[in-house]
């Protein structure tokens, strides 16, 4: 991987010379870096493992917690292997880099050094889907949630707001399980409860089609469905999916769209399993997996190209109303 991305995609107000208590950032990645210091205070078993990415933005945590933040260089296999060893020693590793390097490059380490050893870790990625649009395909993954969900015993959180990311970080740093938190540059205007449940955020006529938005897709889905006869529900935890909540909201003959900011159909198996006892019409909206988008530009450009902007989502959801 290239360290250039650290520079080109650096947070805009990196806290190198920041005051001790700057305003809480609305950017999830910036908030993650800022919260590591209090997280290490609150959770004495937690350690942070880095592969360069992020190390320049958490000087306060590094200075105040000597021996608890390990930057091992650009070595992603060892990044996850070291995390497995720390967990075997009774520590709670918090592991961070960009999503493709954390999940795809080190996938066997995630499978064996964590899962097969039956130990936990908190993996926190930045650079979700096409956040790093201008960096190109090497710095992007839409498959990370599907890949992590394919391994036993993982929980996947996809927060849609920095406050949600902060709450998840503090909670999971004190846990013992295998947890993947996917931070994104795309975000909603306000936070919602990150309790693992599916929440109905826009009600409508009973039996109206249900649109499930995951994480940062909520505001886009609300805009896309304005004036449409649909209900909108939301979750920050696609895996494990709140199957009971989905069954209750979907009703006996579900007409459903699932809008995810990553690989289209990632939640298809979980939705099908939840609704296997009833006839259901389900549309999955996400990043198409069949073609590689060989363009740069902005995340907004990529969202439009993938049909994940409000207009694109509206076109797809409208097909459920015919």
């Amino acid at each position: 991987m290239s360290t250039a991305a650290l520079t080109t995609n650096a947070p805009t107000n990196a806290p190198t010379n920041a005051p001790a208590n700057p305003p809480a950032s609305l950017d999830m990645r910036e908030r993650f870096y800022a919260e590591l210091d209090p997280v290490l205070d609150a959770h004495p078993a937690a350690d942070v493992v880095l592969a360069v990415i992020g190390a320049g933005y958490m000087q306060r945590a590094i200075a105040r917690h000597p021996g608890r933040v390990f930057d091992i260089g650009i070595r992603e296999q060892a990044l996850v292997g070291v995390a497995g060893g720390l967990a075997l020693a009774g520590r709670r590793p918090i592991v961070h880099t960009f999503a493709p390097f954390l999940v795809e490059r080190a996938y066997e380490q995630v499978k064996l050094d964590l899962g097969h050893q039956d130990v936990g870790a908190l993996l926190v990625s930045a650079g979700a889907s096409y956040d790093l649009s201008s960096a190109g395909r090497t710095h992007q993954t839409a498959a990370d949630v599907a890949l992590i969900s394919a391994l036993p015993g993982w929980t996947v959180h996809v927060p849609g707001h920095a406050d949600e990311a902060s709450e998840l970080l503090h909670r999971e740093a004190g846990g013992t399980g295998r947890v993947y938190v996917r931070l994104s540059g795309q975000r909603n205007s306000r936070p919602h409860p990150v309790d693992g449940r599916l929440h109905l955020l826009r009600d409508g006529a009973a039996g109206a089609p249900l649109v499930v938005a995951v994480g940062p897709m909520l505001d886009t889905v609300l805009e896309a469905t304005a004036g449409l006869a649909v209900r909108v529900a939301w979750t920050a935890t696609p895996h494990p999916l709140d199957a009971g909540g989905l069954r209750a909201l979907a009703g006996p003959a579900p007409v459903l769209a699932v809008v995810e900011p990553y690989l289209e159909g990632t939640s298809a198996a979980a939705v099908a399993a939840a609704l296997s006892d009833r006839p259901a019409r389900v549309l999955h909206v996400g990043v198409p997996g069949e073609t590689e988008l060989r363009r740069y530009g902005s995340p907004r450009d990529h969202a439009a190209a993938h049909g994940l902007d409000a207009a694109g989502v509206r076109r797809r959801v409208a097909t459920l109303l015919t």
Partner: protein
Amino acid sequence: MTTTTAPSTTAHAGVPQHVLDLVARVTGDEKHDPSAHSTLDVVWTLYDQVLRVDPEHPDDPDRDRFLLSKGHGPASTYAVLAAKGFFPAAWLDDVASWDSRLGHHPDRTLVPGVEIGSGSLGHGLPISVGLSLGLRHRTAARVVVLVGDAELDEGSNAEAIAVAGRFGLGNVTCVVVDNRSDNLGWPGGIAARFHVEGWATAHAVATDHATLAAALRRTDPDRPTAVVVTALKGDA
């Protein structure tokens, strides 16, 4: 129980007969073919003379950790663990059967005394770095990881060798059992790969248990140690 302790040029001559018998129960090899178990001398010497482990307390947080990274050759490790009382010797008689806790690659969740599940190569050394970071300054426990010379092909080892050296992890010992099974070889020698990254290095011959034990006991407070152990060529 008889124990032969004199150094010998005969493979496994320093390993007690009852341990060889236990190995044979795993492999079904009545002739105790010495070429079948390149790791036996090292594993026996570690558990008999070096490691501070207690089969009555296999989860003692202060225990030394032995990581068999080269997980495709677990017979000798299983036999030594059984000999030391970590689990009943009867477990050795049906390895890899449906009802067995012992497979052709070990699973740490199934076997008392086994510290990591291994099999896919190149995982033990990076895990040992994390174990070291988690244990040092908290306990005197050592972390001893066994890899093969061909296993070093995996690039993850190069990552871990660099990190352990740069971090000065004095509680890590990497034992490289060199049976010259690497296809492309290591020009300049295996130890040079560790030395250049700041490791202390030593050589030993598998059958010379006195020298081997001394090399495995020696640690340096400020840097990790690599012990390259020459085993019979072609040993699995």
